[in-house]
């Protein structure tokens, strides 16, 4: 049953050219081998630290992360968690960023010098405790990540009507997660249409965010290449951590719990067989 209908299309051919606006399917993000992909894989904290640096120096000028506080960076499982270890050569106690292979006692985030320094480098606008008027002060570790705009209206007004979304749980809120963020950030192809930029990984193909990453814009202290792709990889890893900060703990606990349940199931099976011995069923 072929339904047949003819439609007369009268359109000036000149008008047709240049409309390559066809929505179509977004390109599938590249599957990058992140350390956290496997069921036992944790975060590469060096990468998460670099990603935080990229966020702080690039993304944070437009995107907030309302659900994160600076102290989160230095809590257990955070990228700047500090442990007190004993130096092998001098025997002196010293601070070690990240959990050492063995030993080391966790330093509470209130005593974490790195996180304090990160927080204090940020200017927070808050009510002055004496005058009640809005006033700037250095950040504290208990402060939430600084919001670049006071509200959504201000954010839209500063960004040509587009709203830079909150990034706290962005990897969970997008299909493809960190792979998508990474592909998107490194996937601009240079085409523009008014205020829109073409990006094959973005659903619809046209995104209001201009290419945010520029080669060499964020200096890395650890000698990692400062390419756009590397920035994208690192910042996506940071955002993955930000969205799921307890992942390492969850996976480790899961291993213990599942092993426990398998043992329990085995014992219960034996007990069940024992109870039913000699019973026909």
């Amino acid at each position: 049953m072929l339904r047949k209908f003819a439609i007369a299309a009268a359109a000036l051919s000149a008008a047709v050219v240049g409309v390559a606006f066809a929505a179509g399917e977004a390109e599938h993000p590249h599957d990058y081998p992140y350390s956290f992909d496997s069921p036992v894989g944790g975060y590469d904290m060096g990468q998460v630290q670099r990603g935080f640096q990229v966020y702080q120096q690039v993304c944070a000028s437009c995107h907030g992360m309302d659900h994160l506080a600076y102290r989160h960076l230095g809590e257990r499982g955070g990228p700047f968690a500090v442990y007190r270890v004993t130096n092998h050569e001098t025997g002196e106690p010293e601070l070690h960023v990240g959990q050492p292979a063995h030993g080391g006692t966790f330093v509470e985030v209130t005593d974490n010098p790195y996180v304090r320094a990160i927080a204090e480098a940020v200017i927070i606008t808050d009510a002055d405790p004496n005058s009640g008027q809005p006033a700037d002060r250095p950040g504290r570790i208990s402060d939430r990540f600084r919001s670049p705009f006071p509200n959504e209206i201000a954010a839209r007004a500063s960004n040509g009507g587009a709203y830079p979304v909150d990034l706290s749980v962005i990897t969970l809120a997008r299909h493809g997660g960190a792979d998508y963020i990474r592909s998107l950030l490194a996937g601009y192809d240079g085409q523009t249409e008014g205020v829109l930029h073409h990006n094959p990984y973005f659903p619809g193909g046209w995104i209001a965010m201009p290419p945010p990453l520029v080669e060499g814009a964020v200096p890395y202290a650890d000698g990692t290449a400062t390419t756009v792709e590397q920035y994208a990889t690192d910042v996506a890893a940071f955002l993955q951590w930000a969205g799921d900060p307890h992942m390492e703990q969850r996976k480790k606990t899961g291993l213990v719990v599942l092993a426990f349940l398998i043992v329990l199931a085995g014992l219960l099976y034996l007990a069940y067989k024992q109870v039913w011995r000699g019973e026909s069923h």
Partner: protein
Amino acid sequence: MSGPSTYEPKTGFTRWLDKRLPIIRLGYDSFVAYPTPRNLNYWWTFGAMLSLCLAVQIITGIVLAMHYIPHVDEAFASVQRFKRDVSFGWLIQPIHAVGASMFFLAVYIHMFRGLYYGSYKAPREVLWILGCIIYLLMVVTGFLGYTLPWGQMSFWGATVITNILGAVPLVGESIQVWIRGGGAIDQPTLNRFFSLHYLLPFVIAGVVVLHIWALHESGQNNPTGVDVKSKADTVPFSPHATMKDLFATSLFLILFGVFVFYMPDALGHADNYIPANALQTPPEIVPEWYLLPFYAILRAVDFNVGPIDSKLGGVIAMFASIAVLFVLPWLDTSRVRSMRYRPIARQFFLIFVVVCIALGWCGGQNPGRLIVPATYNATLNWVQGGEVVEQPVQSAGEAGWDEAAAEAEEAMRAQGMTLVATTRTGASVGTVRGVRGGAPQSASVSAPSSDGLEEAITEAKEEHAAAAPYYMVERNIPGTFTVTNLSQVLTAYYFLFFLIILPLLGLRETPGRVPETIAKPVTTQTEGA
């Protein structure tokens, strides 16, 4: 089944208590001495898992309520705070979310088991109906709970489902506003949904008590469907059934754990990590997986039936698909309980299971998606060279436009022009164009989808852009079989199974030979083995 109590208090205190509150006797008679058919298989262990699921949901839910804030500005953030900052919040929240899915997984298996072994048949009709009530309460509770994180799916799911109520004739809109506490989903809705979501699990627990009471009154069904006739047919509930239930439950917990620890978000939807936004609908709204079959039935009705429009029709079909379960004990006319001895019914049952799963698949798909691949063709006709002639068209009034346009086109064709077409630019004005002379050309394009065809046409036009100002495009749209069509077929079978197949088959079929007692086939089997 219950018979006289065999409990004998042994100590002075229990004798004293037994005279005043025989609670130990009740527990002993219900969960220790209670005679259980000895031939129950693993499908009978899901009742225990469901009790566990209810307990887990209530306990984790009470904990969540200690930290959750039912406010439109705080709800999303309070869940995030719970997962990030509260001790073990990262564990308890996924247990509650995954727990809902596990609860429904177990209840579906439990229900299919009841269907297969005829556990709804006399004298267990009330037991079955109580189970249906529990299921209905679970659906409502699950829906209310999904609203609470106040993500995009929460918000728009609540919008869509409350709109369903608006389909009810006359009072629908009033009910809708009453449920929402306003014209749209907002703070009043969230607050009352939270309150009801907290209340309903305890109502479920109450109905579960009735369900177990009814079970213990009529006794458990068993894979043969044959009534228990003597003590030889049964074993005491503890330790025999309890131990088996515990073992099966530990396996269930392993599956539960794999989801909680390694795929906590696999059963949810990414969009629910976007805070609710009343100004923007997500590109696709799908309910949680356990409601997808009903969602497919809702969407399957895309046609009006007499005075019933498609929206109301879908709502009726969806509610009917649950309502039919309540009357099932009187729809199935077979005198044999277990489908083990009903070879034809068993085939229909297996198809029914596949249909339910397929309905679930349909519920998660774009309704316009093609099931059977189709080829869309189009032929482009144009004229190479020639001269374009343009003439204004003016009709007497708005109503006379079609006639005037047809006349103008006819006049041009009469002059030997090709590719004649009119463009309307106002109520009664427009332009008629045609090409005089030139060489007629044509080309065909094809694509596997309607959008693809349009793209191919655009491409073809660009290719010949310079040569031809006008195209006549003939599109051949093939007959298609979409997800909606499939849902319609599956929905038809769903109702056919309950309303036609089970009533008729019970009267017509010749069942297999049913054993006389439970113990008999069991003993012969054991001897044979």
